[in-house]
């Protein structure tokens, strides 16, 4: 048994206990850990946001442009948004400042501009991404071809049968998600089969995840028993 002499290990062990105490019930130790976590994580975010975004993407290009202007006068290339030194980086800054207009009575609608930029761009980007990245490969994978039955191309009788079950499962699951049709007759059969597939899938995912989550707990216990207390080698 050899206790750790590293201050950070002791801090880590203490914080682990703070968090684990929540399993018993809410208590001042957990509250301490929780508030410290939120505070430190936010401080870290602020520091990294400045060091990795604001400084290199905005402050430095703008500062550099000011320096060049002071030394060599104003030049057209200082207004090229892609240049390493340019004045235009101020525009995103100004748009960002629009967030603060909601404290100005009567001008709060300006907040909609930065929000609109985000909502618009990302909903747009998502469309080809899901079609290309999800719909095409998923549909492609669900269609059954003769190759699935062919041993020469890595298939076989059973893998062909399983491919057909997968296809039926996909169709049934899609049927379950029909909103504008009441689940009656053939739709009902399809939808109920679909939900059985879904439940089996969810159970399997749950069971499959246990190992990964227990691994995390093992990792923590090993930290306490080995790194901190030194009970096990």
């Amino acid at each position, binding site marked *: 048994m050899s206790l750790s002499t590293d201050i950070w290990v002791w801090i880590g062990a203490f914080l682990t206990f703070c968090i684990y105490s929540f399993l018993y019930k809410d208590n001042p130790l957990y509250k301490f850990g929780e508030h410290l976590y939120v505070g430190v994580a936010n401080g870290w975010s602020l520091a990294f946001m400045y060091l990795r975004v604001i400084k290199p993407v905005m402050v430095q290009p703008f500062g550099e442009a000011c320096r060049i202007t002071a030394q060599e006068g104003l030049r057209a290339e200082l207004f090229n948004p892609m240049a390493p030194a340019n004045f235009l980086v101020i525009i995103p800054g100004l748009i960002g400042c629009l967030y603060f207009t909601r404290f100005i009575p009567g001008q709060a609608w300006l907040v909609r501009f930065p929000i609109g930029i985000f909502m618009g*761009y990302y909903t747009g980007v998502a469309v080809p991404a899901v079609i290309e990245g999800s719909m095409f490969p998923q549909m492609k994978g669900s269609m059954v071809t003769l190759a699935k039955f062919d041993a020469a191309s890595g298939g076989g009788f059973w893998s062909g049968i399983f491919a057909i079950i997968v296809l039926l499962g996909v169709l049934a699951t899609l049927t379950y998600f029909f909103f504008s049709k009441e689940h009656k007759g053939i739709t009902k059969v399809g939808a109920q089969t679909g939900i059985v597939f879904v439940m089996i899938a969810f159970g399997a995912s749950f*069971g499959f995840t246990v190992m990964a989550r227990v691994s995390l707990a093992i990792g923590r216990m090993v930290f306490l028993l080995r790194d901190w207390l030194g009970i096990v080698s």
Partner: protein
Amino acid sequence: MREKLPLALLIIMGLFGLAYRFMPHPGAEAFNSYLRDTLLRIISAFALILGLGNLLLRHAHRIQKREQDWVHSWVLILGFGLTAIIGLLGGVAGEGSLPTKVGNFSFNITDIYNGLLIPLGASMFSLLAFYMASAAYRSFRAKTWLAAALLLSAFIVMLGQVPLGYQISPAIPQVTQWIMEVPNTAAKRGIELGITLGVLATFLKILAGIERSWLGSGR
């Protein structure tokens, strides 16, 4: 005007976001990378400042009003302040103007990340092992046929994951693999395909101005 102008901007951004994928031209590429790497990043940095202001004011308010747990609000504010100062002035690995080493004890922002944030995160994350057990105990009950299907497949897969399952029967790991590859794949594909359409419809509803909750009050 107060609605149409932001909506027009949203539509332009949305259509560009969609069309960009189909435009290999370097011009489109350059504009997109400006948008994504400069414009949106800077705007979201301002959102973070707004958010942090909101958080700190809320806790300052708690301290002022001596609300429940106000002492812990001090922990939060001090933790935030110290970390931010160490990070902003001390640099990523202690190369900044603020000294972040006393004797052998180093406390630059990377140390704080490794020494505080990683143990806190790992501990929170590992609570899942416990919560999985309690959730399974509470919910895996064969109240209906569907619940029984859920329970049974979870049970078999759990068994197939450990050596015990193999010892009971070598077929159990195989059944596990079958469940993962056949019913699991089918259901997930069905859900994913539905999601594809949901994404598309959400895009259209927002662009067409049908879904307008994002516009908020404007006041």
